[in-house]
Every structure is written in C-alpha cells, then in structure tokens.
C-alpha cells in the first residue's frame, strides 16, 4: 500500500479511533498539520486521553503527560528571533497565529513574539486537543504563575496538583481570594505559609498538604472534607486529636482516607486520646461506632498518622 494516506477521507468515528491509537506527542504534532485535522482532533477531544499539563518554568516549559504517566512530552516556548530563517523550523497555525515550530528529541519548541501570550495560546490549544488537568508541582513556581492560576480556575479548569508558596507572593490576599472559592477544582493542594499569612477556607480540595500549618486550627480541621489531610509544623495538641478522632468515630470526616499530623504539641504524657495514652494508640485499629470503617493508627515522635479502610 502507498506510504501516503488520505486521512481526511475517513469517517469521523474512525478518525477518532486513529487519534486514540497515537501517543500524545504524535497527536499534538498531527494537529499542527492543518486546520481541518486540528478541527477533527478537537471534535474527538471527549474520547481523547486525559493529560496532565505541568507548568514547569515561567511560560517557557510545559510538560504534558498522560494520566498514567506512560507518555510525556515537552513544549518549550522561546522568543522569536530569526527563527523564521532556520530551514529546520516550519510555520504552523496555533490559535489563528502562524508560529515557527521546531521538533527535536527533547520536545516541541515554539517561537513567540510575546512569550506570555504564546504560553496562554499553547494552553488553549492543548485544551482543544486533550482533556487537560493542570499542575504546578514545584512550590517555588507559584509566584511565576500568580495570574495564570486564577485565569485557569476562572475558566473552571481542573488542577491535578496546585502548590502555593505564600512566602513568595507579592499579593497573597489577591491570589487566595481568587483561588479559595474554587478549590473544588483542585485535586491536591499543597500550601506553604510561613510568612504570617492566614488563608481562610471557603471550599476544600480533595487532598490538602500544609507545611507550616501552625495557623490551621482545630475548627478548620473539624470542617475539612478532604480525603487526605497532611499537616506539618502544626500546633494541635492531644486534646485536639481526641476531639478529631471522636468526630471520626461518630461518622464525621466521611471522605477521610489518610490523616497525618506533625506537631510539637503532641505529647506522650499529655491528655488521653480516645481514653488511651498516646503510645497505647500505636498500631491500634479503631472502628467507627456504626462499624462501617476501621482505621490503623501509627504514632511517632510528635506525629500521628491514621489510615482508614472500609469494611
């Protein structure tokens, strides 16, 4: 059979199957071939792979990986300076703009006159090809994406992982005001706040991890609906843990699967928890009063961990 093939003569359903057979980088490259191809890929988006788009460095590096992490490719954004004269660089259409593109072993490099604008065009383009969840894994990158985070949440886009370091932000209140009521869109929220800023929660992500959580009070903990709660540098005491575990036993924290608290105020000689001294709890399996769930407790120095399993 001829090495060329009139792809667009195939029915949409078949095309969608062909797209599914390609890996995510091949699909991205194919989408650049023509507007009609990218429209077809866009039409098949709902049947496409789910991808995680990790924003690695300020506008310049985007890591796109399949949800099972089997497949990864990078999109690199650079300023356009003489890019059009390089014979290895070809022009393709991205979001109605003609963009010089260079493919290499390390990824796909795009050249833009305005890097920030180009970066946003790439994100929009990716959203048309794949079902995307975003991710900012490196907590040091928060300040780079201060505006982008709220823009993406405003578009109701989901975050697989969102790391926020309040210490690095110029306007902590502004970002938190924009983010705090959209935490339902965030799967895993990681917070570092050691600068005196106290975030107020109006909604909860699925998982939360707070480093420097001295401001995260018992009241917050009792309200928290996350499946995983991890608190580092906490000030919670034995009596707070007692109240927390009693609430869980009576049916509270219905989503909870894992609770980890590191606190200097957790003391072996302190108040009893569920009627037991702290060390007595170590390795204990406790049950909810209705018997529907059990949890294993692990105790360490200034640390308590609880892992829940259903019967």
């Amino acid at each position, binding site marked *: *059979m*001829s090495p060329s093939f009139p792809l667009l003569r195939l029915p949409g359903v078949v095309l969608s199957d062909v797209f599914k057979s390609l890996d995510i980088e091949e699909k991205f490259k194919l989408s650049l*071939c023509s507007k009609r191809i990218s429209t077809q890929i866009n039409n098949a988006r709902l049947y496409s792979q789910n991808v995680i788009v990790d924003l690695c460095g300020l506008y310049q590096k985007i890591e796109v990986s399949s949800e099972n992490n089997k497949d990864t490719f990078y999109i690199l954004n650079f300023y356009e300076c003489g890019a059009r004269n390089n014979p290895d660089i070809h022009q*393709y259409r991205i979001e109605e703009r003609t963009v010089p593109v260079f493919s290499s072993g390390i990824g796909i490099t795009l050249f833009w006159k305005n890097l920030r604008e180009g970066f946003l065009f790439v994100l929009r383009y990716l959203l048309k090809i794949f079902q995307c969840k975003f991710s900012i894994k490196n907590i040091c990158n928060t300040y780079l994406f201060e505006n982008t985070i709220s823009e993406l949440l405003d578009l109701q886009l989901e975050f697989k992982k969102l790391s926020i370091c309040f210490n690095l932000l110029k306007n902590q209140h502004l970002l938190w005001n924009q983010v705090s009521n959209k935490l339902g869109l965030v799967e895993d929220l990681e917070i570092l706040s050691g600068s005196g800023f106290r975030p107020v929660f109006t909604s909860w992500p699925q998982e939360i991890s707070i480093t420097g959580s001295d401001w995260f009070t018992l009241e917050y903990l009792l309200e928290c609906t996350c499946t995983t709660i991890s608190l580092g540098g906490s000030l919670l005491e034995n009596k707070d843990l007692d109240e927390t575990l009693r609430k869980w036993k009576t049916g509270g924290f219905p989503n909870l699967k894992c609770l980890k608290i590191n606190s200097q105020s957790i003391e072996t000689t302190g108040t009893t928890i569920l009627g037991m001294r702290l060390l007595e709890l170590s390795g204990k399996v406790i049950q909810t009063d209705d018997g529907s769930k059990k949890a294993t407790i692990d105790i360490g120095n200034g640390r308590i961990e609880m892992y829940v399993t259903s019967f």
Partner: protein
Amino acid sequence: MTSPASSSEVKYLIESSEGNTFDVSGAALRQSNTFNAMFLNIGADGPIPFTDYNEATLKKVFEYCEHSVNEENYSGPKHQDDLSKWDLNFFNEMDQKMFIDVINASNFLDIERLTSYCCERIARMLRGKNTQEMIKVITLPTAEELEAKQKVEEKKAAAAKKVAEKAAETAEKTETLEELPVQQLVQTTRNKLTRKYLSFSNE
C-alpha cells in the same frame, strides 16, 4: 434468507451495491454489531442489503470475519506487532482504495476487531514522524505551500483586476465617440472582462 441447518452452519445471503448476492456464515456475520442489532433476532426473509458497498469490499470484510470466527473474543486493540501472519497478509494485499472501502464498510457494520486493526495500521504510518513528515503521509499541502499558493493567487487576481480596469477605461473613452451599436459592443466587452476578473479572483 437462511438455510435450516444448525446455528453454526446458518448462512445468510448478502446483497452488494451491484445487486449481486453471496453467502456469509452466521458466525461471521455475528461479528458485526450492526447485523446483530438489525437482523439477529428477527431474521432476514431475503438477501440482507448492504448496498452501499461493492461486492469486492464486502467479500473482503467477511473474509476477515470468517477467518476470525474461531479466534478468542475481541479484547481491545492489538499492537500491529501482535498481528498474525494471516492478518498481515490480509492487509498487505489490499491497495489503498480497497483499504479505505474496507474501513468504511467495517465501520458501518461495526466490526470492532477489523476497524481497530485498520486504525492501528493508519496510526502506524504516522508513528515516530514529525509534523512535516506527517503532512507528506496524509497528503496535505504544507503551510509554506499554502502561503505560496495564496501569494500566486493574489498576484493573479491583482493582474486581472488591472487588465479589467484598463479595458474598462478604454471602453469608456470609446463609448463617448461611437454610435449606439458600438456602445452595446463596449458594454458586452466590459461585461466579459468583469466576468473574467471575477473568475480569476475566485480561483
């Protein structure tokens, strides 16, 4: 039309776009979800009309179905490297036109295994290639070629417009001097030139 043998030997008559009929076993036909949905329970009194597809295509599709009757149940797409020698021969002996016809028929008949193998085969043509190479495979003009083509067209249109304007100018000068029949002649010429210009612009 079915023969009254045991269920595994039941034969159905299939009618192609040429009006020709041929036999296909019930076991092979049952790989088509379209057939299952339309005829399996109610049966067919006469030939089953798959008249959007020609005989050669339908025979090729059902050749595949007959072959895979005894294979294990389909469990999702297979990698091309896992295809048997028979499968590879089956695909290799098709020319491109037949391959496209087979995909279309398989898609209509909803034969998952065959459609999936066909898609995998197309994906393989694109695998490991960059965009420029993909454009060549899927026979599309490149952005540069499109840009060059557009420039040529713009040039053509501009040149045609110039000619038309000049002709119209000349015709206007003549118009004032000539008698009515000549004016009509000029008008005809102008109309012709305008049409020519428009046809250039639309090319």
